[in-house]
């Protein structure tokens, strides 16, 4: 008889793989957002998807994942385009543009909840988007081998999505490296050289948006936003070149994923007698990495600012 699959395999393997993949990808893409002064865009997307969800719900009448995902993606894309347009054409300061867009879209969502049928459905629409790390467990049937085709089929779907996003992001960053560096650094120059900076930035934004929304679905929005911003911020303090910055950011992201998950599932039971929320723990770990980095840099070198 096959021994029952270990708790690690059932409960931890897939969430751990997912959080490391996602953390790596999000921190990688987030490092470019930070350079563009758009660190808050993840937060904006998390708030902006509500109208997309309500509209998708009203159109399809169901909470099935596929339409919800499309609705969320559409709303998030709209939000990022609107933010880009406001900064560029109305010359609104980027942070303020983010604030205007996400509060507006969220308010629109709340209004739609009230005026369409959604008010009478007992659900938090955002729970559709608040996936949880722990829930990516691997439901291997009792007595079945984990490596049978059937068991492998049961690997959580988001794991595959995240692996795809990881591959696409790494590929895009590798091959778009110079283009990204040039367009993010000096847009007018690249434009004058006949490149299409708008296209490059657009592609980056599209990739980021879809990764973020896919990760919302799998991991929940808290974790996504934290991983999008904290590791790049920490890496920014420790590096001087773009390559080192982006690479360190991704590595710090993955470490935050690992540490946070380990604390939530192994450390917390020892300290307080039970597991705690892994997404929250990973986000807090990312924050602690940043806090530690900031303390170290401030204590080591009290330079006010490099420019000027």
């Amino acid at each position, binding site marked *: 008889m096959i021994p029952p699959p270990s*708790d690690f395999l*059932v*409960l*931890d393997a897939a969430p751990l793989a997912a959080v490391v993949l996602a953390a790596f990808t999000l921190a990688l893409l987030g490092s470019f957002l930070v350079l563009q002064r758009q660190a808050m865009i993840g937060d904006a997307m998390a708030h902006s998807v*509500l109208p997309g969800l309500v509209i998708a719900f009203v159109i399809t009448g169901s*909470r099935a*994942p596929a339409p919800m995902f499309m609705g969320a993606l559409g709303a998030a894309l709209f939000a990022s385009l609107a933010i880009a347009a406001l900064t560029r054409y109305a010359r609104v300061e980027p942070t303020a543009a983010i604030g205007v867009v996400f509060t507006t879209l969220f308010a629109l*969502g*709340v209004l739609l*909840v*009230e005026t369409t*049928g*959604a*008010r*009478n*459905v*007992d*659900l*938090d*629409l*955002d*729970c559709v988007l*608040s996936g*949880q790390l*722990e*829930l990516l*467990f691997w*439901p*291997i*049937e*009792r007595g079945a081998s984990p490596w049978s085709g059937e068991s492998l089929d*049961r690997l*959580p779907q988001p794991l595959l999505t995240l692996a795809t996003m990881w591959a696409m992001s790494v590929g895009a960053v590798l091959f778009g490296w110079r283009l990204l560096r040039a367009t993010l650094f000096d847009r007018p120059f690249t434009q004058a050289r006949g490149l299409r900076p708008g296209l490059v930035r657009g592609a980056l934004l599209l990739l980021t948006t879809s990764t973020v929304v896919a990760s919302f679905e799998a991991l929940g929005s808290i974790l996504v936003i934290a991983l999008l911003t904290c590791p790049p911020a920490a890496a920014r303090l420790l590096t001087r070149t773009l390559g080192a910055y982006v690479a360190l950011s991704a590595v710090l992201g993955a470490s935050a994923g690992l540490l946070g998950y380990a604390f*939530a*599932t192994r450390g917390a*039971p020892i300290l307080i*007698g*039970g*597991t*705690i*929320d*892994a997404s929250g723990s990973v986000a807090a770990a990312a924050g602690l990495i940043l806090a530690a980095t900031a303390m170290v840099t401030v204590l080591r070198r009290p330079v006010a600012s490099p420019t000027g």
Partner: protein
Amino acid sequence: RDGSAASATDSGAREPDKKVVVCTTTMIGDIVRAVAGGTAEVHVLFGPTVDPHLFRATRDDVQQLMAADLVFYNGFGLEGYLEPTFRRVAESGIDLVAVAESILKGDEAMQDAGVSDPHVWMDPHLWARTAPLVAEALGRLLPDSAGLPGRAADTNARILALDSFAREAIATIPESARTLVTAHDAFRYFGRRYGLRVEGIQGLSTASEGGLQALESLVDLLVDERIPAVFFESTVSERNVKALIEGAAARGHRVVLGGTLHSDAPGSAGNYEAMMKHNISTIATALRGDSTATEALK
């Protein structure tokens, strides 16, 4: 004891022979415990003070689910975050029962509601149907357990007793005052069963936010029908109820705060029966406008 915390981490502490049954809400857990009567180990995921709408599972909870032989949950979206999980737990060969959905299957109450309102436990008459359902499911798991039907009948009877308690209590409220104003729409089944008009300030969904017009019409209602009391709910912010009281007071009608009702979780009441009794007597006392009669009822 409440199994959500310590028991899950060391699965070695489990009694080896017993089957494990996991329930989501306390309302279900109470019935399952009563029907199982010690023949199975029963765990409840949401403690009595946990809001099911916002419950977020940790690894311990998933471990409990995956170690279970049978899982009871409410359904109709009450356990919003967990619903996709239930499907995957089922995939791994674990038996799952959606209690509220099963007892309402084909029921006119459901068509009435039109939409999936999960707060079925608010109507003890309906909720009593849970007992035989649980017995049947447990029977599949424990084929040799002869005591199940008997305990199910007892439980059923106890819950139906709540129903008559409620009828008597509500009957003491003057017809004109039979309007229940609460923070959110959890009392529809309750109201339908006992002939109370139910007005919620907020919709079913927690994402919904009451508007000013709705609030003012509620004030109008309170003043016009001279309704004596409104109620807090333990899971929802108290602010909008306070605004109602203030609005009515400004128009010369004194509305009192009837007390705190438990809608989605038993809260400090601790279990389903206590919660319902608390709700019923609180409502009856407050809407009647005197407190002595309910003391007698208790």
